């Protein structure tokens, strides 16, 4: 346990070998992860919990931490050595509990160049528990930390009041810490510049614009130079042979290969398991997943996101949120599932409802965005811009409406801003791999399942029936061919596959724009639906879904009229 952004997750990874997402901002971890480590001859369970400043929680994430405390035998209290004083408050609270404690004095390497000197022996004596200096990112001190766990002690159990604790901390700090003056580093100057209105605004624009350009560059290069050639030159001949073997048609052929016209494989439109079923996840979505999470990981580890939160605070207040809600929102551009979970860093139920609803309506995930760039982008960048522009306007307007309509008020921003750090490539690549792996194991089965379901439903002519019933809305209101309803139905499983279903319909650019926006807004995909249910509860989920359906139809209808 420890305060936010002290490196608990990195220590956990070091102890257990289980990798968890770690970043340079308070509130990265919102749930708990279990792992195992070897302790002498025994196997001991280790639990990584969210950061908390005190044992009196102020957010859902901190609540999780406090609850987990009661289940442990030993607490490893991770402390930021560069900020000993305020970290010790939680340490003292932990020492007052009936549970042995070891203190890991993390970021030990940072103390030296920050001019901070800590007398370890004195600190051990005053706290009465083992205190081990560590540098979790490099692994320094982890072995000693493990060895100290059996020596974890139960010191004085004197329960103090808040003011008594601060007095005690004051006296401890006086005895163990000495700070020498030193000059500001360039990171600190840049840090100051990024939270001032003018320079901060310029830095934010530059950061987001270059992030977007780098993502597109990496995504398009991977597709153009690696994945499309692979599919066209290596995989297409295999598919054609297989198509011959399966007799060139029939139910099985259509499920596995899909429709093949003129001896050429159209990976986007054929809709077989081995054609579109593989091309959508690997050939279209994966490149952007890699590109997005690489850039996000860098921004996270540098420590930029809390500064963006400060800049965005005034705007976010109009939407009933505060600046920190920008972090779950940005995560949503990767996948809405971790984004909805990350709303746990917000303090009130009201904020969580507004943030989660806005994310699932107006923030397209990387998979959907990859398809939008791939399909809508063929008609020109301006159409892609209309899709993003519309979603942005929806985000603002819906936020303003919810801020007025949902009872309560939004609390104010109060966050610690971590120093800028140079990210370690190893850590960034490891995090990237975890997220890409997560996509591979969680998304691909659903994508293949969706393609299978589509084929079976086509075969059973279920879609025709649905299309005829919903034609007034789909054709009349949205101006799409009635078959497009199949995409909306499949959007419940995967939005990338759903948008792919619009490809064979030969839509105009305007119709594709309407289709993309409606698909993005209409309904959360099943994975997001499940976390929304868990995080918001049934009643609020139904409210959120109602808002989504109405908003999607209204916005789709308006777009159809004006385009």
């Amino acid at each position, binding site marked *: 346990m420890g*305060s936010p952004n002290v490196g608990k997750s990195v220590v956990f990874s070091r102890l257990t070998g289980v990798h968890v997402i770690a970043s340079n901002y308070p509130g990265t971890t919102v749930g708990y992860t279990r792992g195992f480590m070897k302790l002498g001859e025994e196997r001991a369970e280790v639990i990584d919990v969210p950061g908390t*400043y*005190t044992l*009196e929680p*102020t957010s859902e994430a901190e609540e999780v931490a406090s609850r987990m405390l009661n289940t442990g035998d030993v607490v490893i209290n991770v402390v930021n050595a*560069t*900020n000993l*004083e*305020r970290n010790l*408050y*939680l340490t003292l609270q932990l020492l007052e509990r009936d549970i042995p404690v070891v203190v890991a004095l993390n970021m030990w390497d940072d103390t030296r160049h*920050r001019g*901070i000197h800590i007398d370890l022996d004195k600190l051990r004596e005053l706290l009465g528990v083992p205190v081990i200096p560590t540098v979790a990112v490099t692994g320094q001190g982890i072995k000693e930390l493990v060895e100290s766990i059996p020596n974890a002690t139960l010191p004085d159990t004197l329960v103090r009041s*808040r003011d008594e604790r*601060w007095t005690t901390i004051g006296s401890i700090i006086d005895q163990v810490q000495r*700070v020498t003056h030193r000059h500001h580093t360039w990171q600190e100057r840049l*840090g*100051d510049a990024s*939270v*001032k*209105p003018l320079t*901060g605004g310029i830095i934010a624009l530059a950061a987001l614009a270059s992030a977007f350009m780098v993502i597109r560059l990496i995504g398009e290069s991977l597709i153009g130079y690696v994945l499309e050639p692979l599919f066209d030159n290596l995989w297409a001949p295999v598919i054609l042979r297989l198509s011959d073997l399966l007799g060139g048609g029939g139910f099985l052929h259509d499920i596995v290969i899909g429709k093949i016209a003129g001896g050429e494989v159209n990976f986007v439109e054929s809709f077989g398991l081995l054609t579109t079923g593989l091309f959508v996840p690997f050939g279209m979505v994966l490149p952007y997943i890699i590109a997005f999470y690489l850039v996000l990981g860098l921004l996270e580890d540098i420590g930029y996101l*809390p500064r963006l*939160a*400060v*800049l965005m*605070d*005034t705007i976010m207040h109009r939407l009933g949120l*505060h*600046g920190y809600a920008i972090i779950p929102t940005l995560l949503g551009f990767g996948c809405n599932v971790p984004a909805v979970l990350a709303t746990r860093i917000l303090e009130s139920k009201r904020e969580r409802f507004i943030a989660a609803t806005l994310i699932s309506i107006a923030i397209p995930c990387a998979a959907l965005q990859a398809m939008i760039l791939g399909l809508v982008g063929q008609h020109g960048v301006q159409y892609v811009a209309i899709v993003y522009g519309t979603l942005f306007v929806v985000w603002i307007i819906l936020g303003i409406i919810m801020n007025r309509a949902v009872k309560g008020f939004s*609390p*104010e*921003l*109060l*966050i*610690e*801003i971590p*120093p800028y750090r140079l990210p370690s490539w190893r850590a960034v690549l490891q995090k990237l791999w975890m997220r890409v792996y997560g996509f591979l194991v969680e998304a691909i089965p659903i994508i293949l399942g969706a393609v299978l379901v589509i084929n079976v439903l086509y075969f059973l002519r279920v879609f025709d029936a649905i299309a005829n019933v919903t034609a007034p809305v789909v054709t009349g209101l949205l101006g799409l061919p009635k078959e497009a309803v199949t995409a909306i139905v499949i959007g419940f499983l995967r939005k990338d596959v759903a948008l792919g279903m619009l490809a064979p319909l030969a839509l105009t650019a305007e119709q594709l724009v309407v289709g993309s926006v409606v698909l993005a807004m209409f309904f959360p995909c099943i994975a997001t639906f499940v976390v929304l249910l868990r995080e918001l509860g049934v009643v609020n989920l139904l409210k959120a879904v109602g808002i989504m359906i109405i908003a999607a139809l209204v916005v789709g209808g308006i777009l159809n009229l004006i385009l």
Partner: protein
Amino acid sequence: MSDGRRITLARMQTGQSGTIVQIQGGHGLINRFNSLGIRPGKRITKASSMIMRGPVTIEVDRAQVAIGFGMARRIIVELDEVIA
């Protein structure tokens, strides 16, 4: 050291330093401030403030904390003496 002038953190100028003398608020708010190192007796420097009553950033104990404007009005600071 101090010139005895007391103003709220919200009204401090960027770059000004001072010592916190009082935090006006309930138990919960004071606890949250305390856990970020913001307590009476602490020296702080205002690092920045956003336009349109946006958050205020301060430096306390070599760390930076961003505070919403409304909260910043509840922190009373005694300004350091300025050597002209």
